[in-house]
């Protein structure tokens, strides 16, 4: 082959190569463009979703500068996006309407947390604060604002209704109580044994109704944040004795033994609301008696711990099945077997009890096995006098 031909052939091959490379490159560019378009499309779609979201979204970057918001933010805060974007959290905190929200943000939280925020008249928001992290590195914070005004309004109306109904019921209940007592005391004439028997039963039913209404009122007060505590120094053991005394008749009637184990040392006085602590003990003893079979036994023991006093009440009753245990302290909860055994009971007692104990800075819990009784515990903090 002549030399020139060889060179031409080589050139043609090179050209081919280049041509191939070029078209490959074109393909790559095309792919990239397509990819870019796709990314843009995806991004636009995400933005459309975020913009049309009913919830407000605020994103703060690593340096706590507001880097992104969506349209609902403008209507929630009555400010244009341009007025707030790029501002630091501390600068935003200077704007009155942002102040309380920014206070939430300033908490050093590493976990997601939720909080209610009444932002302005007729707008209550549920604030969810989510720390944004990528491979353990902090990227900023996402805040989601969800309008819960409607739910809150319904909740308020419901609570108000229960409160009103309970208040209205109390006057007639007092009247019934007084009238029955008068009749029973013979103030309105002599009674036959049968009349007396019926009236006594009616009196008891009425007392139960009063108890139930009180429970309902306490629940509405807890929910409205109006369950107010009057803290005074009081004698815990004395409160327990007085409550136990009250149940003497009931215990005898049901043939249930009650044993009280007191600590060797007299406990110091506790700082608490005596009436409400009484209610806690009443509720626990009441439950123990209610769900213990005749001939059973209840043991109450008081133990002095380092910083708190522990009340423990153990019964030999029907116990609480495992499946029902998580709901024991929730409102209106009543065990399925409990309802079979005792139709009465509001399902409010333990809800109120837990609220009272926790408001005093104490803890409440229980252990139980179905058919083997239940043991309820609660603690109250001890405020020992300072050592001189």
């Amino acid at each position: 082959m002549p030399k020139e031909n060889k060179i031409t052939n080589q050139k043609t091959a090179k050209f081919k190569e280049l041509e191939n490379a070029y078209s490959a490159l074109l393909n790559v560019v095309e792919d990239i463009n397509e990819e870019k378009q796709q990314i843009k499309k995806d991004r636009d779609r995400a933005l459309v979703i975020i913009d049309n979201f009913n919830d407000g979204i605020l994103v703060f970057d690593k340096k706590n500068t507001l880097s992104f918001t969506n349209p609902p933010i403008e209507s929630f805060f009555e400010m244009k996006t341009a007025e707030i974007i790029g501002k630091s959290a501390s600068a935003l905190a200077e704007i009155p309407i942002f102040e309380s929200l920014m206070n939430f943000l300033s908490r050093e939280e590493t976990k997601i947390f939720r909080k209610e925020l009444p932002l302005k008249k007729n707008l209550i928001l549920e604030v969810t604060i989510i720390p944004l992290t990528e491979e353990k590195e902090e990227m900023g914070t996402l805040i989601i604002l969800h309008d819960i005004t409607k739910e809150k309004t319904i909740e308020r109306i419901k609570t108000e209704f229960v409160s009103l109904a309970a208040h209205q019921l109390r006057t007639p209940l007092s009247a019934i109580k007084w009238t029955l007592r008068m009749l029973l005391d013979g103030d309105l004439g002599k009674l036959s044994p049968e009349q007396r028997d019926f009236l006594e039963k009616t009196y008891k039913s009425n007392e139960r109704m009063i108890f139930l209404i009180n429970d309902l009122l306490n629940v509405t007060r807890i929910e409205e944040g109006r369950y107010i505590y009057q803290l005074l120094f009081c004698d815990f053991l004395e409160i327990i004795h007085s409550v136990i005394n009250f149940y003497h008749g009931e215990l005898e009637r049901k043939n249930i033994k009650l044993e009280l184990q007191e600590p060797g040392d007299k406990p110091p006085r506790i700082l608490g609301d005596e009436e409400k602590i009484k209610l806690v003990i009443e509720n626990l003893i009441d439950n123990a008696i209610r769900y213990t079979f005749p001939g059973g036994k209840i043991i109450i023991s008081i133990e002095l711990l380092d910083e708190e006093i522990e009340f423990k009440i153990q019964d030999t009753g029907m116990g609480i099945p495992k499946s029902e245990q998580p709901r024991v302290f929730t409102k209106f909860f009543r065990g399925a077997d409990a309802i079979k055994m005792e139709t009465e009971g509001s399902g409010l007692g333990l809800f109120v009890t837990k609220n009272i104990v926790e408001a005093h800075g104490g803890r409440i819990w229980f252990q139980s096995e179905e058919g083997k009784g239940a043991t309820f515990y609660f603690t109250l903090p001890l405020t020992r006098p300072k050592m001189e």
Partner: protein
Amino acid sequence: MPKILLMEDEEIIIGLLQKKLDKEGYEISVARDGEEGLNMIKEIWPDLILLDINMPKMEGFRVMEEINKNPTLQRIPIIVMFDSPDSVDLKRAQALGAKDWFVKTELNLQQILNKVVEQIGR
């Protein structure tokens, strides 16, 4: 005969208290709202006021505030009757000078009578 002014709007409650206190020899006058009650105090100069907190026209707390403006009236002991007080209500009644108080559903008429006797005797 000791005179008691009962300020209460519920007829059945009035009837029951009246019967019980009457029988024990007290002279009972009844005002069915706060305004009427305030006017009656100066007419009958009672030895004791039994005051319901939830009343039309003028609630019990307001009645006490008005009474406190007059040092002579202020000397009349007041027993406050509640339907369902919370701690704040109790504190307020005490601050306004109530001598005693009770929750209607918690006491029987006899126990209420005992409270009256404690204040003004028989």
